[in-house]
Every structure is written in C-alpha cells, then in structure tokens.
C-alpha cells in the first residue's frame, strides 16, 4: 500500500491522496486515463470492481473501485467535473472491458459523457426520456415523462465522442448493425432470457455475429428511491433486487450500515445470518441449475431441484414467514428469533442434499447431449473474467479465485472450513459444475454451524433514528451470482446521499456479447443459462 502511494505521488503530483478504509485518490479528469493505465499495467489493479456515478450538488463525478486481483488490495479513485450542462470525463473502456456498460449506466443516470467511449447511448431508459433522473435537480413531474405506449425507435447507429487531439472532442456516428445484417430481436418477452432482457442479435445463418444489449425493461429506480428513505426503510428493496439471493443482499446492506455505525452484531445473529445466506445460496443454485437444464430442453431436470428448493423454502418460511421476500436481516442483527425446529429441519435437509445432488448428476450431468451442448461453449478466460468483472461461480469456473468470503471475509466466514470452488475450463459445463460443488460446500458450512448456534441476543441495541456520519462506505458480500457490493455515501442525515447496489448480474450481462461471438443461436441460450443472471438484479 505504501509502495502504491509513493508511486502515485511521484508520477501524479496533482493527485490528492486520502488515507481511509481504502486508499483514496482524487485526480483531475485530464490525468485520470494515464493514472488508470499506471494502476492497471504497473500496479496490477486489473479489475474494475465498481464504477459509481455521483452528484454532490455542485459537482458531478464518478467513483471507481479498483482491485488488485493478486493481493486483493482495493483503491478508490474519485474523478469530478464542475460542468453540469455538458459534463465530460474520460472513458477507461479501453483498459477495463466492464467499464463499457458501467459508463453507459452513468451516462443514463447523470448525463456524464465519456470521451472515447464507443457507444454513448442510454442504457436503461427510453431514448426519448427527458432529463437524467439521478441528478439532484431532476424534474420528477410525471407529465415530463408520462407512460408512453408507443414503441421507441430502435437505432442502428450510435454516437461516440472521440478526442482527436488533447482538448478537442469530435462527435462521431458509429454503426451498430449494418443494413445487410439479419438482426433477430430476442426479448424482452422471450422464454429463455430469464426475465425481460432484450438482446438484438445479428446472425449469419445460425451463427451469432454480434449482440446489442438493451436493459431497463425492469429498471425500477431502486437506488434513487433509497435516497428518499431512511436507512431501515431502504432495507426491503434489497430483497427485491436479486430475489434469489434476497437474504445475502440484505446482509450486505446491513453490514454496510453497521460498518458506518461501528456496530457490533451479536454472535447469535451473525451465525444465523451466515446460515440463512448459505440456505439461500443452495436454493438459488438449485433454481439456477433447474432453469438452465430447462433452457437446454431437459424439462424434467427443472422439477427435481425445485422439489429440494421447496424444502429449503419451508425452513426459511418457518422462521421468516415468507417464501421469497423475507425481510429478515435488520440493522444490528436479525428481526426475529429462529423457529424452534430450525436445527432439526436443517439437519434433515443436510441428509437429503447429497442424495439429491447425486440424482441430478445421474439424470443430467453425465448425459452425452448435455456434454455436447455445454463443453467448450462460451469459454471465458481468466483474464476476461477479471476484465469483465465476472465474479461468483462464473468467475471461479474460469479459474479466478474471487470468492469474497475468502478474499475479504465478513461475518464469521473467516472461522469456517470450506473450499473455494475453482475450476479452470471456463465453459458452460464448468459453470454448471461449479454451482453443484458450491451447493456441497454450502452444506458443509451448514453442517458446521447447525449445532453451534450460540444463545444470546439476536439484535444489537441500535438507536431509534439511525443517522450515519458524513462519509462513504463500500461493502461486498458473496451473493449467489457473484460479488454483490453496496456503496453508501452519507452527508450526515438519516437519509443517504447515494446508495449504489453493485450487482454481479450487471457485469455478467455485459459479457454476453463477448461470450457469444461466433457461437450458435442455441449456444446463446446455453450461455445465458450458465451465467444465470437475474434481470431485476441487472436493472435494479
């Protein structure tokens, strides 16, 4: 860390270095691209973990979190602009592939134009949307943006702002699809997109030549809504982001607020949280492999995992009272005590699971057709996984050991015995198998904890009105689909200035085009299923 500080200070004297939870660098925009180059090529920060647009009232800007994937150091970079009419910053798309989709998000929400970004279109909102909703001065009057029932115009041409000489910016037209290309519109209403994702796919025969991603068909503006609510009120949105890892998402937000408050969570609550997270992970992976198999055409394999999933939902329901949106974690602990039969139920589940996993392997994994469909399809190399920030089972199937539970342990994970599932093939089969192995590991964690739940409080004492001090906090947890990050920036009140949910699915969706180039249409479905994104998680 000191080394890093020295190098940056020497090379970039204009950068302001702030020591905090993570090292923070404030650089002017003109220097940002060269700083990013140095960070990536010389200092090994090869993963862009998060890119967060910000509006501080007078300043607009972007906060970057970069990770060095060998040492797991994190550095935070802040770049700002005072121009609110036509704000422009330099893009880092050429360094980090995932920035392509992140920067479009920031453009959509804040209107910040990224110079040299090849595709400056809106990402979530309609082309004809008026204003930039995340700016503090956004006009929220519904008459400005009424519910329009006419279809938006689909453009085959986009714009790019290219810097031809320092300080000289030129607006150029970039073609997405040429008129000769055969473009098939897959989605938003399509059985295999796992929700409402829209992929405009150019095909040559059955071979995919390019995919243009359209998001926002379930963009609910959760982050903006959070800015108008108190911290406990924001909690319930996390359950509805990636509803299949509801507990884990909520855990992340609670951890972030607790970190800001310096709150010590009782041991019992911590154990319960981890157990719930792992139950959630098993149930999510069960559904993931089920729907994946259904996408491949093996319908029966959908129903077998769902049968076990119901058992898990029963356990969760007895404690929380809900099947999907649990509202269980709260700031300082958990909201209610465990059901008296919880331990017995979990033990029963632990008996069922190994048999069930064996059955899935028997029905599906060994099947010749399944192997033909999945082996070598959609190969994601380790470097690409880091470049596209594909975490979770997807990243680990490509050989990138990126389990947050191991890298930045939170809760009681550092005390637990479990293996990080890392495979090296990087194809769809590896992702499928990684999920199955992760279920086994989750069972292992549950088995360690089921008899070790300590007695005690389930929730720490928290003030009636939760006010966070001025500052910012970033907390990542390992959700079912990858690293789920929560960023909170507070100006000191009981409401956040900015909440950002850095969801794993978003980056996975960004990698779809890269993964499907040159594959067949049927492989698009395989790849989509193996990435297992949840669309409300992408769109938020």
């Amino acid at each position, binding site marked *: 860390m000191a080394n890093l500080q020295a190098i940056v200070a020497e090379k970039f004297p204009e950068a302001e270095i702030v020591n905090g939870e993570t090292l923070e660098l404030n650089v002017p925009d003109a220097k940002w691209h060269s700083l990013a180059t140095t960070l990536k090529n010389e200092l090994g920060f090869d993963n862009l973990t998060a890119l967060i647009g910000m509006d501080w009232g007078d300043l607009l800007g972007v906060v970057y979190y970069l990770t060095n994937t060998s040492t797991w150091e994190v550095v935070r970079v802040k770049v700002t602009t005072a121009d609110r009419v036509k704000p422009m910053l330099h893009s880092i798309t050429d360094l980090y592939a995932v920035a392509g989709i992140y920067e479009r998000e920031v453009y959509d929400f804040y209107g910040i134009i990224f110079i040299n970004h090849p595709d400056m279109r809106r990402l*979530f*909102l*309609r082309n004809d949307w008026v204003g930039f*909703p995340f700016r503090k001065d*956004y006009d*929220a009057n519904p008459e400005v*943006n*009424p*519910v*329009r*029932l*006419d*279809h*938006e115009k689909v453009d085959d041409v986009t714009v790019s702002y290219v810097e031809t000489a320092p300080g000289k910016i030129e607006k150029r037209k970039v073609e997405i699809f040429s008129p000769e290309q055969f473009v098939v519109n897959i989605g*938003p*209403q*399509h*059985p295999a997109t796992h*929700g*409402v994702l829209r992929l405009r796919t150019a095909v040559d025969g059955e071979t995919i030549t390019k995919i243009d991603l359209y998001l*926002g*068909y*379930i*963009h*609910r*503006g*959760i982050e*903006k*809504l959070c800015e*108008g609510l108190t911290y406990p009120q924001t909690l*319930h*949105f996390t359950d*509805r982001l990636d*509803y*299949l890892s509801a507990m884990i998402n909520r855990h992340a937000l609670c951890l972030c607020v607790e970190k800001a408050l310096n709150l010590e969570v009782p041991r019992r609550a911590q154990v319960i949280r981890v157990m719930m997270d792992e139950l959630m992970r098993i149930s999510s992976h069960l*559904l993931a492999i089920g*729907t994946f198999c259904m996408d491949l055409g093996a319908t029966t394999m*959908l*129903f077998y995992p*769902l*049968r076990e*999933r*119901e058992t898990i939902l029963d356990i969760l329901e007895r404690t929380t009272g809900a*099947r*999907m*949106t649990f509202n269980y974690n709260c700031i300082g602990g958990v909201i209610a005590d465990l059901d008296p039969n919880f331990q017995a139920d979990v033990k029963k589940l632990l008996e069922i699971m190994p048999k069930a996993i064996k059955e899935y392997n028997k029905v599906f994994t060994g099947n010749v057709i399944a192997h033909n469909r999945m082996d070598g399809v959609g190969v994601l190399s380790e470097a690409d996984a880091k470049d596209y920030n594909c975490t979770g089972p997807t990243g680990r199937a490509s050989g990138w050991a990126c389990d947050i539970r191991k890298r930045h342990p939170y809760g009681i994970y550092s005390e637990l015995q479990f293996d990080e599932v890392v495979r090296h093939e990087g194809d769809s089969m590896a992702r499928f198998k990684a999920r199955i192995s992760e279920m086994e590991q989750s069972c292992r964690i549950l088995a360690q904890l089921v008899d070790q739940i300590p007695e005690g409080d389930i929730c720490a004492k928290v003030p009636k009105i939760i006010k966070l001090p001025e500052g910012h906090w970033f907390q990542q947890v390992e959700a079912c689909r990858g690293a789920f990050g929560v960023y909170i920036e507070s100006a000191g009140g009981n409401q956040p200035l900015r909440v950002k949910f850095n969801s794993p699915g978003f980056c996975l969706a960004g990698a779809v085009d890269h993964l499907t180039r040159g594959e067949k249409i049927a492989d698009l479905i395989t790849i989509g299923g193996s990435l297992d994104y949840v*669309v*409300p998680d992408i769109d938020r």
Partner: protein
Amino acid sequence: MEVTTKSMPYGDWKDNEYIEGMVNELKANGVNVVVGSLDKLINWGRSNSIWPLTFATSCCGIEFISLGAARYDMARFGWEVARSSPRQADFMMVAGTIVHRMAPVVRRLYDQLAEPKYVIATGGCAISGGPFRHSYHVVKGVGEIIPVDVYCPGCPPRPEAMIYAIMQLSRKIKVERFFGGVNRQEKQQDFLKNHPLDKMAD
C-alpha cells in the same frame, strides 16, 4: 345462480357477490334454451382450459415456476400448457413490476393474444406499483395500460394465492356469454379506446 367449481365449495369463495352480480346482469334479458346450453358447453371448455403466456418480469415469475412444480402442480387444473407465443395463450399473468420501458411491450403482448384473452395482475407491483410506486420509472399498476380481469395481491403472492386467482378467473369465464348478451369484448374495446396507443388519456 351459484357458480361452482369442482375444487372448492361455494362458501369458501371470497367475493361471490361480484360473480352473482355478473350472472344477474347476464340473465336480465333471459336466455334461449339452445343458445344457453351451447354457451354452457363453450364455457365449460374455456374455463377448464386456460393456458398461460410465459411472461414474468420479476419475483412473481419465480413463484409462477413454483406453481408449475411438484408441490403446487398447476397441471392438475390443466394450466400447465404455458405457451411462449402470445397467439396461442389464453391469459397473461402480469407477474412483476411493469416499468415505462416495458409498458409498450406489455400492451403489444396483450394485443397479440387471441380472443378470448384475460389478464391477471399478480403481485403488488402489477396492481399498483407496489413498493416502487414512487419511482420515476414504474407504471402505477398494469390496469393503466391493459384491462385487468383478476387482481392477485401479495409480494409476491404465494402459489396458493395464484391458484385461487386463476380459479377465480375460471369462474369468471364460466358466466360469460359467447352469443350476444352482455359482452366483455365491448368493455375491453371501451378500455382500449380510452387508452390509445399513441397517448395515455389521463
């Protein structure tokens, strides 16, 4: 007249007055014996064979999958033939939040459904916008853009609630009339006239 189903005793239904009101409305002009029994036959077919469109935007969609799975098994009622093409489906379960960008798509899907078509608004989001009601990008209830037949509350509704909702729809279909009489199509046309495609009438 009591509209009964095989699966549930009449007394267990919650809003019998509404269905009975519909029956009275239909009976007001009297029914020809032949037409009446033909209607009965057609409605028997329709009410027992409602195929859903596979359409889901968020959490409710997962509960809809659970509805098809072993424990809740909607196949018992013959609803498991989920069609991916709207041309072949009978009803659309609007499962999940409908946002501004999705609204024209939902409307188009509804227009693509073949008559007779029905809509069930499932979950708080589809009914009113739910927890996201105050968002800049959420439609405050799918009823603003397409006519809804049955509302199924919950966040997300349990599969049991969904079964109840579809059974209610089935009961509603049972008291329809194919030949003349009070026609739901007229109401539908009125709705669509008031909510034209180019501009929403507020």
